[in-house]
C-alpha cells in the first residue's frame, strides 16, 4: 500500500490526545506546581494578599482542583496511548514520525488555545500570572497555542501526502 493510500486519522487522533495531555501536564507541573504562578481557581481563591490561614485554605482548595485537572490530563494521555497502540497494530495506517510530531504539536497548541480562551478569558478562573498585569501573559499563552497549531498543521501536511481536507487538519497536496 502506498503512503498516499494510508489513513492518517488514527495516528492524528492519538497524537492529538497525547499532545493535549502533555500540554496539560506542562501547564500543571510548570505553572501550577514548580513556578506556582497560578492554581486552577486562584482568581476566586487567591494564595497571595490574604492572611496566612486563608492562604493555606485557598492553597488546599486550589490543590484539589489542580488534582481534578491533572486527572483529565492523565485520562487524555492514557486514551492517547491506547489509540496509538491500536494505530500501530492496524494495517493501512500512516505511521510516519512527522505526522506524530505534528499531531502532538497540534494537540498541545489546541490545549493552550482552548484552555486559555475558556479559563483565562471567558470564565476568568485563573490567569497565567495571577499577580500584577495578567493580560500580556495570557495573550502570550494564547499566541503560543496558535503558533503550535500552525506549526503542527504544517508538519502534518508535509508528512502526510494523503491529507487533502481543507476543513480538517491537513491541506491540499498541491500546497
Amino acid at each position, binding site marked *: 500500500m502506498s503512503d498516499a493510500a494510508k489513513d492518517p486519522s488514527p495516528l492524528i487522533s492519538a497524537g492529538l490526545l497525547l499532545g493535549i495531555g502533555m500540554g496539560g501536564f506542562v501547564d500543571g507541573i510548570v505553572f501550577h506546581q514548580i513556578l506556582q504562578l497560578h492554581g486552577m481557581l486562584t482568581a476566586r481563591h487567591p494564595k497571595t494578599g490574604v492572611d496566612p490561614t486563608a492562604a*493555606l485554605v485557598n492553597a488546599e482548595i486550589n490543590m484539589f482542583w489542580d488534582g481534578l485537572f491533572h486527572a483529565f490530563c492523565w485520562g487524555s494521555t492514557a486514551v492517547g496511548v491506547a489509540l496509538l497502540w491500536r494505530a500501530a497494530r492496524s494495517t493501512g495506517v500512516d505511521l510516519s514520525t512527522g505526522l506524530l510530531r505534528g499531531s502532538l504539536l497540534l494537540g498541545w497548541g489546541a490545549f493552550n488555545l482552548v484552555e486559555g480562551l475558556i479559563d483565562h478569558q471567558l470564565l476568568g478562573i485563573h490567569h497565567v500570572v495571577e499577580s500584577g498585569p495578567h493580560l500580556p501573559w495570557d495573550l502570550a499563552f494564547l499566541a503560543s497555542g496558535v503558533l503550535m497549531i500552525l506549526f503542527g498543521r504544517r508538519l502534518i501536511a508535509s508528512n502526510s501526502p*494523503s491529507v487533502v481536507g481543507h476543513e480538517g487538519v491537513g491541506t491540499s497536496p498541491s500546497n
Partner: protein
Amino acid sequence: MRDARKPRRLHRPAQSLQAVAPSRPARCVVQPLLSALLFIVSLAPQALACPICSSDTGVEVRRAILGPELWRNVSATVLPFLVLFAIVAWVRHRGPARLRPVEDDQ
C-alpha cells in the same frame, strides 16, 4: 520431572499465601514506622489541612470545595477538556471523510 512438580507447588493455596505475605523482619520494620508516623501526625492536628482531615482548616477546605460553587467549579475545570475531546472526536470520526486518500479522489 522437576519442571512438572513446580507448577503444582505454586498452585497450593497455603504456599501461595506464604509467598505473598510479608516476612517477619519486614513486619517488624513497617509496623513501628507506621505507628511512629501516626503518633507524630496526631501531635500536630492544626497542621493537617487536607480535604478529608478533621482539623479546623481541613473542615474549612472541605466546606469550600463541597459548597454551593462545587458544580460551577467542576464545570470550569472540565469544560476545556470537553471541548478538546469533542475536537479529537470530530477529527477521528468526521476526519476520514475530510482526510481521505488522494487516490480516492482521482
